[in-house]
């Protein structure tokens, strides 16, 4: 080589830079794994104000109105989901929730049997950065109690009559039927475990077909590379 040049060419400088950056990256851990940071004060505030709750009748109204701006998520197992689920819900069991590919800007409404799993899932999603997560207050139990088998008065006053008609039509929409208040009162006195004659049998509820024009299941079109 005719004389050693002490200056590197551009390409050589680039190569050097790449090797240096590559070596420094030896200890890199770019995937964060499943660790998250929680803003405990913020979360505690939200929990306290119950701003994250959706009441069962409210959800029923959304479904009847065919609102499509949210996703209803059933957190239970596939078997439980197959037996009965709230119409328009998608089944995402707890254990696959984090891998489900939900967008962080989507409005999500979670429900489980009671409220425990949905509350825990709510916490997990909020911790991961989902801002628009809500829980069905009381879960499926409240849903059955207030929407599918609502309690109606036996001798309704004029105001009560209007309310009861509404409850009856909502209940019919979801394939259920109202319960008489007197029967509930009689049955309510019964201790669990005893087989009471007075308590009305809860029929197994069959999910009614999705209301026409309801939110379609998210069959996302794929895009490829």
């Amino acid at each position, binding site marked *: 080589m005719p004389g050693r040049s002490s200056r590197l060419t*551009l*390409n050589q400088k*680039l190569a050097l830079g790449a090797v240096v950056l590559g070596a420094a990256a030896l200890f890199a851990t770019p995937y964060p794994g499943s660790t998250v940071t929680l803003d405990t004060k913020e979360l505690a505030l939200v929990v306290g104000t119950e701003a994250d709750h959706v009441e069962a009748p409210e959800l029923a109204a959304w479904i009847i109105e065919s609102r499509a701006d949210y996703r209803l998520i059933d957190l239970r197992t596939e078997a439980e989901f197959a037996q009965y689920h709230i119409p328009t819900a998608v089944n995402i069991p707890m254990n696959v929730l984090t891998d489900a590919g939900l967008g962080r800007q989507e409005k999500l409404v979670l429900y489980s049997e009671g409220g425990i799993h949905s509350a825990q899932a709510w916490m997990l999603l909020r911790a991961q950065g989902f801002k628009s997560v809500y829980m069905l207050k009381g879960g499926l139990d409240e849903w059955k109690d207030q929407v599918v088998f609502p309690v109606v008065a036996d001798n309704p006053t004029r105001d009560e009559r209007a309310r009861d008609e509404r409850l009856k039509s909502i209940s019919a929409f979801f394939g259920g039927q109202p319960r008489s208040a007197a029967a509930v009162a009689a049955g309510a006195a019964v201790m669990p475990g005893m087989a009471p004659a007075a308590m009305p049998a809860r029929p197994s509820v069959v999910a009614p077909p999705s209301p026409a024009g309801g939110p*379609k*299941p*998210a*069959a*996302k*079109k*794929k*895009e*490829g*590379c």
Partner: protein
Amino acid sequence: MNPYLAGIGLGLVLLAAFVLVGRGLGASGAFNSVIAWAVNAVAPEHARNNEFIAGYLGDGGASPLKSWLLFEVIGVFAGAMFSGMLAGRAKVMTEKGPRVSVRVRLAMAFAGGVLMAFGAAFARGCTSGQALTGGALLNLGSWAFMMMVFAGAYAVAHFVRWQWR
């Protein structure tokens, strides 16, 4: 342009895609979307029944043309045109070697495209979507794909050298 500098530019564009949109570049997928749209426009029943095409139609809520990749590819067209005109490399011509006629070259180009379509369909991408994007993300399938592309090309190059030399 110095290939390494062009490569850095390309790499930064790819990085921008990762950081802004959470996905990489691509090209072949845009062609799929257009085909799906076209078949659906001409014969919707047939499109619905074809599993491959139906995937690009989804539930029919959004047109397959409203595809990130398609917009990106249109951008590729624009960006390349701009660069070509800037460099004086924009010219209506046919790239070919001295020993082959234009007609044969064009036929080979078409054939190459057909082959490319099958390759990209099986591989779920092409050199942009798989090799560049998947390569940067250390995707196993993408690296395997990339090596096979070089292998296939080098293996056959000798047999089509009459087209180029």
